[in-house]
């Protein structure tokens, strides 16, 4: 595992671990409710209601990083689920199936009061329904209306013109479904939902994302990147899963400050940086050392992944007179923004140019087919602005088909042939 260069990275990791231990104590000892939710859910509603949330994708990444995925998927396959099904969103379900036969991270997930997901791809409703049955808990779904209007440069409109950008009909439906979710949370907690509390939280989320925006600007402006993407991801995601909490806002600020200090002091993550790489796709959770493998020989540093950049561009919402609607606008198009044309390719090309990217490694997620769309348009868009692209087929959580050495060789060849 590569060295941690930022103090905030160690703090983020320690905080996550302590937060989860606290969650387990609260659930087991005080019978407090918590929820498991998909990453594109409105965490803010749970936050306001005092219901801690575990992100399905975060848990999948943890299970994967502990190299437990192969055993979990063996268990899934043994139950009759074929091996061509999506892995990223189903690894925690597979881990539940595996039960005590694997030592789940940090003691494992206690039974949640509910699980919840947006119905993006056609399999997520199935994964969550099966999981709810297995856990003996309730599944609340939120329908995912399609976008019919997709104007250019969404990231320039999403902060202030979100009502127009995300289409009123889609926001109406999403808000109506939020109300159902809120009623369920009120039932679970015995507390009343307060709109004013949501406004305050949304304001704090804005502040948090503004710090991340500033951090991104510092990274862009620095002659050499001050922070590797692995550390960006640890810091950003630890805060995003708890977005709007005092800790998350404070941590985002600390992260921004540390980046700024490093830039002002001329500290680079990789002093011999010569080539700036971009990683397009979800993180390669079972082999995060991959991202630093090209530094010593080529000075090739991964500068960008979606995790930091999407916070400010995807989450900030100004004009909170109708906070539920603003929140709906935050989540309703994540699928289009990250995985589908025209929004994903346009945004990634813009980010590549702003970050002075020399070459992009674009993930084709073999274990998450639905998230594998839009890649050809990303490739073509980047190549069109003279940023060479290499595609790489990998399962982000399951290492069974991953040949790390061969993949590193392929990237080296790409660097030598197209970037040097």
């Amino acid at each position, binding site marked *: 595992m590569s060295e941690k260069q930022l103090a905030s990275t160690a703090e983020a990791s320690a905080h996550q671990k302590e937060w989860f231990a606290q969650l387990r104590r609260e659930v087991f000892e005080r019978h407090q409710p918590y929820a498991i939710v998909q990453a594109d859910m409105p965490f803010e509603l749970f936050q306001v209601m005092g219901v801690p949330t575990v992100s399905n994708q975060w848990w999948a990444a943890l299970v994967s990083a502990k190299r437990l995925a192969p055993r979990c998927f063996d268990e899934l396959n043994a*139950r*009759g*689920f*074929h091996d*061509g*099904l*999506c892995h990223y969103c189903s690894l925690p379900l597979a881990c539940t199936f595996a039960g005590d036969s694997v030592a789940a991270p940090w003691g494992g997930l206690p039974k949640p009061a509910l699980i919840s997901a947006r*119905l*993006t*791809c*056609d*399999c997520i*409703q*199935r*994964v969550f*329904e*099966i999981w709810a049955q297995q856990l003996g808990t309730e599944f609340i*779904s939120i*329908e995912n*209306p*399609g*976008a*019919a209007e*997709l104007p250019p440069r969404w990231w320039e409109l999403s902060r202030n013109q979100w009502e127009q950008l995300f289409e009123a*009909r889609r926001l*109406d*439906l999403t808000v*109506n*479904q939020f109300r*159902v979710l809120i009623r369920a949370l009120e039932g679970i907690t015995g507390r009343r939902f307060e709109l004013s509390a949501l406004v305050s939280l949304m304001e704090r989320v804005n502040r948090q994302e503004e710090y991340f925006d500033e951090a991104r600007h510092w990274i862009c402006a620095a002659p050499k990147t001050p922070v590797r993407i692995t550390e960006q991801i640890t810091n950003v995601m630890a805060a995003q899963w708890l977005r709007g909490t005092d800790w998350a806002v404070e941590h985002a600020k600390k992260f921004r400050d540390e980046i700024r200090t490093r830039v002002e002091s001329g500290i680079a993550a990789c002093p011999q940086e010569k080539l700036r790489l971009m990683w397009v796709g979800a993180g390669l959770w079972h082999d995060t050392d991959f991202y630093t493998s090209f530094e010593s020989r080529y000075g090739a540093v991964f500068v960008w992944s979606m995790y930091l950049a999407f916070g400010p561009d995807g989450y900030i919402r100004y004009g909170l007179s109708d906070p539920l609607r603003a929140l709906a606008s935050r989540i309703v198009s994540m699928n*289009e923004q990250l995985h*589908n*044309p*025209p929004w994903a*390719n346009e945004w990634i090309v813009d980010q590549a140019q702003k970050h002075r990217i020399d070459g992009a490694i674009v993930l*084709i997620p*073999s274990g998450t*087919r*639905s998230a*594998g*769309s839009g*890649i*050809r*348009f990303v490739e073509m868009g980047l190549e069109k602005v003279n940023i060479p692209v290499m595609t790489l087929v990998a399962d982000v959580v399951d290492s069974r088909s991953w040949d790390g050495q061969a993949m590193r060789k392929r990237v080296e060849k790409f660097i030598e042939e197209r970037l040097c």
Partner: protein
Amino acid sequence: MAPTANDAIARLVFFYQNPMSDALAASETGMPLVGVTSNTVPWEMIAAAGMYPVVLRSEDGPTPVADEFMEPHVFHPRIRSIFNQIVSGRWPLKAVIIPRTSEQEYKLFLYLREIARQYPDKALPPTYLYDLPHSRSEESREYGLKVTFAFKEQLEAISGTSIALDDIARTITESNAARSTVRSLIALRCETPRINGSLALSLIGPFWSIPRKQYAELAQEAAAKLRLLPPLCAPRILVKGVSTDDVTLHNILESFGAVVVSEDDWWGERSAGKDISTAGDPIAACFAKYYSDSPSPRTFPGVVADSWFEERSRAGIEGVVFYLPDEDYVFGWDYPRHKNFVDSLGIPSLVIRDDPRRMKTSERSRMQNWVEHLPKAPQS
């Protein structure tokens, strides 16, 4: 190309094998063609707008245009083929309407929009999303109804004419007549089958590609003739899994001595469903039909999605084939549950993962062996 035979059965089979033939002939007379991609776009409303709705079928063969823009392993062969047809300008379509019936189709919509944006010289027909949700909730129902009323306005904009409610009522009546004849054909497959599954698919298929009035006439005539056939004494099979607009799987199973009597698929037994209500607002009636009585991989919760399959499994079959080819990443989640269900009824089942058009000999042998060991169908 037009069918030469006068026989209704031969004409329907011709239209199944040449799904665009009638549409192209109509187009030559000035009828605007509207391509749709699956079963949940209200045919009745498009027809009421004076346009010719036709469901686009997959074509076997290379898809070079799709290969350029669509990632391997993400899109199903049928979606790739449709993309290829539309972008290569294969058909003179005035518009393409894509329902939110599967994630694949939604992505197809976004891809076509992007091609139109980036490559205006390709002159794609305008593409519209009919954003019908399939989860069962009061909020989804309300949304779907609004979307369906907005769909009428969209069709008026496409056709340049206003749509009278009476016209929709008229096309509903036409469509219901066609649904009724589909049900007559399906009756010839149930309990005591008189036609095999390959023929049944070929006869039902044109429901999606020719005008419903014409279809009703042909199917009625075909059903009257087929009713006279002797019963088929063979193990009765239900096919479940990935939707297929191709008869190859049926052909293979039937070549081993089985008869496919049903498929949980809108290309087959689930094509027509129930009639559309003729009472009340015809737009609301169309919505109710397509929301509540049209199969979709997005139907949720599972208990609703499973109900048809469970009911049909109890209605007299000797085996279930779960068709889960390489492109499947959805129905495989249902498989263990469905297998448990048919196991509980004592019905044997078989999983097919190969594409039947490129099936290995060993896989064919496995199928043959399975069919040969199925219980015999009861004598009528």
